[in-house]
């Protein structure tokens, strides 16, 4: 990206859901506005536009972030995942399916952000990250069980004005359990394959 210091716009390429999107941006453009207004990726929602509600949550290099405080020009070179990139074809992401099955929403406006956040919460927990409600954060204490309190704290950056929190917590818990089960299934499948190979 060759940019003269005096220039207030840049030609950039954004990598979103595995696709490259070249565009010229005024440096003031947030990633949120670039997604919605320039690239027609309107799944990411604008709520407060000041980093307080989480409606615009996307994943940057696999980690959740609010797109409203992320300048588009500064997102060049990063892997951006939006709600549009969660499903695999017609196959919904397990977190999307859990929100559907357990009614983890009412009006649906905060839902894309809730789902992107929840996907990352489940990965953060699987990686052993403690939270503000984890009593003992020392690594020796091991990862905390993903209780309702842990889910509420970890999801506290996503507000829901309809107040669908009870169902959201249940949906995140079910999706996390599904992930754990499938991880165990994979392990046992691998074990079986190894055994078969050995046999």
């Amino acid at each position: 990206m060759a940019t003269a210091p005096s220039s207030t716009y840049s030609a950039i390429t954004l990598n979103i859901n595995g696709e490259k999107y070249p565009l010229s941006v005024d440096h003031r453009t947030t990633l949120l506005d670039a997604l919605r207004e320039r690239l027609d990726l309107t799944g990411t929602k604008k709520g407060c536009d000041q980093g307080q509600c989480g409606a615009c949550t996307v994943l940057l290099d696999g980690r959740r972030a609010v797109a409203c405080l992320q300048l588009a020009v500064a997102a060049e070179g990063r892997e951006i995942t939006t709600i549009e990139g969660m499903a695999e074809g017609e196959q919904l992401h397990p977190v999307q399916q859990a929100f559907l099955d357990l009614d983890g929403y009412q009006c649906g406006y905060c839902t894309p952000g809730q789902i992107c956040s929840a996907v990352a919460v489940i990965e953060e927990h699987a990686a052993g990250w403690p939270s503000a409600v984890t009593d003992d954060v020392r690594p020796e204490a091991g990862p905390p069980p993903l209780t309702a309190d842990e889910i509420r704290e970890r999801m506290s950056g996503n507000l829901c004005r309809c107040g669908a929190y009870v169902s959201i917590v249940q949906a995140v818990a079910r999706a996390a359990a599904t992930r754990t089960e499938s991880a165990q299934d994979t392990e046992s499948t691998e074990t079986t394959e190894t055994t078969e190979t050995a046999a």
Partner: protein
Amino acid sequence: MREFGYQRAHDVSGAVALLGADPDARFLGGGTNLVDLMKTGVERPARLVDVRELPLGRIESTDDGGLRIGATVTNSDLAAHPEVRRRYPALTQAVLAGASGQLRNMATVGGNLLQRTRCGYFADVTKPCNKRVPGSGCPAIEGEHHNHAILGASGHCVATHPSDMGVALAAFDAVVSYETADGSGELPFAEFYLPVGDTPHLETALPPGALITGVTLPPAPVAARSRYRKVRERASYAFAIGSIAAALDVRDGVVREVRLAFGAVASRPWRARTAELALTGAPADAETFAAAADAELAAAEPLPHNGYKVTLMRNLVVAELTRLAEEAAR
């Protein structure tokens, strides 16, 4: 928002050179505070120098048993690091108590130290504010100040520093490293933030154009038994109305070593050295803890609507030291 230039720096000297001595240029880290302030017009930089990709993203043990934390380490990575959790658990707890998961993934250690107050008058460009426009006045003193400072404030500004992380860094004697065009330098945490006085717009002792490159925590065995507790007006995702970082080493019922720092009570993370002095060598009981808190808070100058903070901080000192003493006795 004012139009601005954007450049991405790839090494420290390049970042410092790009910023130059331009008072209209700013380093951009995670942007969680700066971009927000640019939207509201509080910050109007002509140029941003993006430092997120600088090679300052590591946490390493120092030879003497401390930790060196790079300036672009994110809050999330700092909180999750095994050695931080093991040696300075109150630092992990403090970082996790701040903001949301999304913001912690974006925010950097360097930016956290330089974030601005959340005083509503500072954030509102239609109001006077000595911190934003020197000499314009401080409406908070006569106005909305229920979450403003009780310690170290002045008649010019009663804003608080919003950082949770900084409270733990204050307790653990962190040292801030920086780079300028003239070379590198260090500032002990106790000297990093300037007293308010009549210059509330001057917040740190960093030289003009300096880039924070990292924070070093000296070895502190006492920190292995430490806690951070934050009180706020809702259960999560809110700034503190009072917080405390505490570390305690008790032997035979006597305080051998103690660290105490307060958050949300002053223009900077407040190291409670008067209380520490009163506690060291004294019996580790609730009476001593309360007396030490009172000694520290004797300097408090509450405003009409934030006197509750004096009681709150006293209670926090007693509660957290009592809990740490009980843990030590187990």
